[in-house]
C-alpha cells in the first residue's frame, strides 16, 4: 500500500512522507519536508533504518534513534517522535494514492 502523508511537527516544520507499507511492515519510506538534518546525506540512513520495520511506534523510534546516534545526526524542526507519529497517522488515514 502506497501512502502520501503530510504532518505538521508540533512547533516544528512540515513533514511530507511517501510510504510503501506491506501488511504490518514498512517496505520503503521517503522523508521530505522543510526541516534541517545535519549532515544532510544522513537522511538516507534514517530512511533505510525504517525498511522492514514493523509499524510499531516505539520500535520505529528506536530504529531511528539508533541511526541518529550511529551517524551523529542532528535534527531541527523534526525528530524521531514526529517521524514515527507521522507514519502511524499515515497508515491510520489509509488514503491510497
Amino acid at each position, binding site marked *: 500500500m502506497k501512502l502520501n502523508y503530510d504532518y505538521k511537527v508540533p512547533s516544528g516544520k512540515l513533514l511530507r512522507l511517501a510510504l510503501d507499507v506491506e501488511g504490518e511492515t514498512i517496505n520503503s519510506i521517503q522523508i521530505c519536508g522543510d*526541516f534541517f538534518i545535519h549532515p544532510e546525506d544522513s*537522511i538516507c540512513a534514517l530512511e533505510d533504518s525504517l525498511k522492514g520495520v514493523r509499524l510499531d511506534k516505539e520500535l520505529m523510534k528506536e530504529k531511528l534513534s539508533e541511526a541518529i546516534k550511529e551517524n551523529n545526526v542532528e535534527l531541527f524542526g523534526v525528530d524521531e517522535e514526529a517521524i514515527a507519529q507521522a507514519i502511524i497517522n499515515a497508515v491510520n488515514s489509509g488514503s491510497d494514492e
Partner: protein
Amino acid sequence: MSEQFRLIIHDAQDAFTNMAIDEAIIRSAKEIQKPTVRLYSWKPEAISIGYFQSLKQEVDIEKCSELGVDLVRRTTGGGAVFHDEELTYSFVCTEESNIVPKAILDSYARICGAVVNSFKSFGLDASFVPINDIIVNGKKISGNAQTRRYNSVLQHGTLLLGVDVEKMFSLLKVPDEKIRDKMIKVVSERVTSLEKELSRKVPFAEAAQKVKEGFEEEFKVELVEEPLAKEEISLAEQIRKEKFSLRDWNYMR
C-alpha cells in the same frame, strides 16, 4: 587594524550559478583563509527548494518553465523560496576558525545577528526567531539556511526587498488546493519586505551596504571587497555543470 572578512558582491546570476558559487566558496574556505560574505541576486527569477524537499511536490514545474523561472535544489535544508525582489547573502567560514559557535542553532543566531543589524540600521525593529527566521513587526522578512560541509559552515539567506505573495503561490504548490486562497491571505499577513515596511523601494546596492555594515558590527571586523579567486570561479563552473544544472540533482527527491 581589525580583522578582515572577504566581501564579494555579484550581479544577478542564474540559480545554478548562484548555488554553484556558494558551494565553490565553502569548498575553498580552507585555502582562502578568511571568512567570506557574498551578496547576490537572481536572474531570471528562481525557486530554490530545501535539500529534503520534493521538487514535484513543492513546485508547479510546468508553470515555472512557461514563465522562465529557474528551479534549483539547495544543499541546505529548509523550505521553498521564490527569489524575486531580494538580496541574498551567503556566509562561509571554517569550523576551526571559531568565528561562529560550534552548536548549529547558536551559530544561526550569530550569523542572523548580522542580518538583524542590517534591518535595524533601516530603522526597523528586527529580531531573530529560531530556527531560521528574522521577523519585523511580527512578520517574516528573512529566511536563512545552513549546512556544515568540508569542515566549514555555509549559511545563506534572504532579505526581502519586495514580495509578491500571489505570484509566489502561482508557482508553488500548496499542500491542499482547497485552501489556496486562504493560504495566500495568511502568508500575505505573515510576510513583509523592506518596501512594505519603509514605503519605498530599496535598491540592491543600498541593502548591500547595510548588510556589509551589519556583518562588520556583529563580528567586529572590516569587510573588504574582493573578486572570487580564479580557482573558485573554475570550481563553480564545474559544480554548476556537474551538480546544480542537472536533473538528477534537482529531482533527487
